[in-house]
């Protein structure tokens, strides 16, 4: 076999790297925390466009004069476009938005267009957070179950460890870069779960097939062979998916930027984990063709 890469020899180094990054991610998530957007924290978000060039600081100053609490103003895409975030206050905010509009118009002396307004109350935001956590847990459980039905439990554990690895590291990077976590990031995380699983399944399928075909070869060699056999598919599919995602990231506008960034991270990490996390676990469990035969005996008494 020409052109084969010895992946198995790199398992150890890769696993150490994975464990370090995984642990760092957990530490970041717990201590630095995630930068929740208004979907999960509650509050008001306004995307506005002005006809004049205005400094973010002057918007900040005029909002601070309104005594709204924590206000965050940043440039958003084009010149004259800004994103304002106002923290949640328990007061009734039914009139908040027209008031902000009035104050900004007066203070800045400019035409102001509110292009997007989002306002999430505290009750709704905690419900959204809860249902997002449920959705991700349910997705992981469903994957675990599917692989358990289609393969053996060792595979199921391997794939779920890989998924955890992907989700945690993606969130860890978001925490490290202080990027906002909102509903679309949760959608991205769930899609990553699907994609990473997809990648893992392709390799696992091949490992199972090769285990039965070459019963004399060790799991390490079977893993190596299978990874190599599926390698060009892994690369091509990651490449086409990344083409699509990068084009969304660059051209899809500000709203999709966070989503596509999370997906790009996820696709890279997911591809890595299928090779360097999911496969070593089979070795750890000493999976062999006997594992498969035993299972078959159980099914066909």
């Amino acid at each position: 076999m020409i052109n084969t890469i010895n992946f198995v020899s790199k398992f150890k180094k890769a696993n150490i790297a994975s464990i370090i990054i995984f642990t760092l991610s957990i530490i970041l998530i717990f201590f630095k925390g995630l930068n929740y957007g208004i979907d999960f924290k509650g509050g008001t978000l306004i995307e506005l466009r002005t006809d004049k060039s205005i400094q973010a600081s002057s918007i900040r100053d005029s909002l601070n004069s309104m005594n709204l609490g924590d206000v965050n103003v940043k440039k958003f895409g084009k010149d004259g476009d800004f994103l304002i975030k106002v923290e949640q206050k328990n007061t009734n905010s039914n009139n908040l938005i027209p008031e902000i509009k009035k104050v900004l118009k007066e203070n800045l002396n400019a035409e102001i267009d509110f292009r997007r307004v989002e306002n999430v109350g505290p009750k709704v935001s905690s419900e959204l957070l809860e249902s997002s956590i449920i959705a991700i847990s349910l997705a992981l459980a469903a994957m675990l179950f599917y692989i358990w039905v289609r393969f053996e439990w060792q595979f199921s554990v391997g794939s779920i460890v890989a998924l955890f690895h992907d989700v945690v590291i993606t969130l860890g990077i978001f925490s490290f870069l202080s990027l906002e976590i909102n509903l679309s990031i949760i959608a991205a995380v769930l899609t990553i779960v699907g994609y990473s699983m997809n990648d893992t399944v392709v390799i696992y399928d091949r490992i199972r097939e090769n285990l039965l075909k070459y019963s004399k070869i060790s799991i390490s060699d079977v893993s190596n062979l299978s990874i190599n056999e599926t390698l060009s598919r892994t690369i091509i599919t990651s490449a086409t998916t990344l083409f699509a995602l990068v084009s969304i990231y660059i051209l899809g506008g500000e709203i999709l930027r966070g989503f596509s960034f999370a997906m790009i991270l996820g696709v890279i990490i997911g591809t890595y984990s299928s090779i360097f996390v999911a496969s070593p676990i089979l070795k750890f469990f000493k999976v062999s063709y006997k594992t498969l035969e035993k299972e078959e005996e159980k099914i066909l008494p």
Partner: protein
Amino acid sequence: MLNFSKINTLIIYLIFLSISFFSILNFQDKDNLIIDKKVNLGLDLQGGSYLLLEINSDSLIKEKIQSKIIPIKKLLRENDLIFSNFIINEDNFSFKVSDLEKFELAFFSKKNNLVNPYIDTYRSFELDYKKIKDNNIKILFSKYGLLTINNAALKQSIEIVRRRIDDVGTKEPTILQRGEKRILVELPGLKDPDRIKKLLGKTAQLNFRLVSENSEFGVDELISETGEKLKVSKRIVMSGENLVDAQPSIQNQQNEPTVSFTLDRLGAQKFGRATTDNVGKRLAIILDSKIISAPNINEPITSGKGMISGNFTFQEATDLSLLLRSGALPTPLDVVEERTVGPDLGEDSIKSGVISLIVGFILVILFMFYKYRLFGLVANTALIANLLMLVGVLTILEATLTLPGIAGIILTVGMAVDANVLIFERIKEELKTEKSIIHAFDSGYSKAKITVLDANITTLIAAIILFAFGSGPVKGFAITLGIGIITTLFTAYFFARHLTSMIVLKSKNQDIKIK
């Protein structure tokens, strides 16, 4: 796997053509509809407002529990029960009763129990009691009693919200119940939701009460429109329920916008009697506990028609008459979630979404052609067919396309080729060992089948969960992703396989390669 009977081929192309036909419908003229089906644009693409309203039933429950005090006292007396320590709280009241067992018997009697009716649908009483200590008990609404109150208030609120929104005249609003306490309102194309929010934010409880220093019913001190403190009797002469119509009008003398109203028969009687008896006194017109105006009663008004003036602008007069026509909300409504997108941002989103779709599509197509040449063309044809079918299915379902939905389509483009890549790579491997090219292609397809299925089902699971838990735009993403997987499987396993078989069978075992 490469043999297609004529019937099979026919069915495959028939399915493809009939589904993709629907994708073309999206480009038809508005006036010249062939079939009235289109993909709906989500609020984030066409602009509009999404509001989630929650009924705030605290005050209603307080009112309702207080209305139970007199009946309960009557029940206690009828059963010769002695009570003491009567305390009224926010949502309950408590007292000490002499004989708890006897009380319980009367309180939970199913026969003709007007104080604490039995709700058949829930198999529960409206009220419940809790023991504080000894014979001290607390009366409050049971879980199902509260549910019944909330339900009724919610149903009524939805009706009034609908009337108010229809009156403003926005196009195709969606008004739906969400859970036990919430109303979802979607207003496509609405640029400024503040007016609607203002209209929905008012309960619009209108009362006519006499201004008087001391009244046998007690007085409230309210501040009038001119800033003067007025003592107003608690007795309601007439309320907004008796209104049958209200219209803005201009009073000629001062050119002042006013609201003219018309009363029903009962209202006209009540109003006539009150104004006849109290000529010379002032009548306060109170909306949501605020005095709009407190004019003098100059002469009896028996016609059932009247006018409210209160330094309105014409817009205010229009809105007030709209509120009065639609009736009062049973409880205040809180906006618990709002998402508004302006129409020009929606247009920008469509533009950038479509551009990134085109660029992503071209990149994938070029890459596939570079990798697989002839078979790259096969995969690319399948990809185009896939897109047509995806849009076709979305049209058939009249699904809502959102910005994340467009992202889902782009992602489908990137991931859809995976099925063909899996198959082609497998065939390449088979070609290494298999002498007959046809056999190699054949076993390539059959061996890759399981993997392709497994791999796609996992993504489908993720899409289904997203659909179940996601809200609004995210749901749109889940729909396109999920449908994309199904059309991908179809195009890879039927459409592309048929194209491949034509190439392979025509070549008659000559040397064909997947690069």
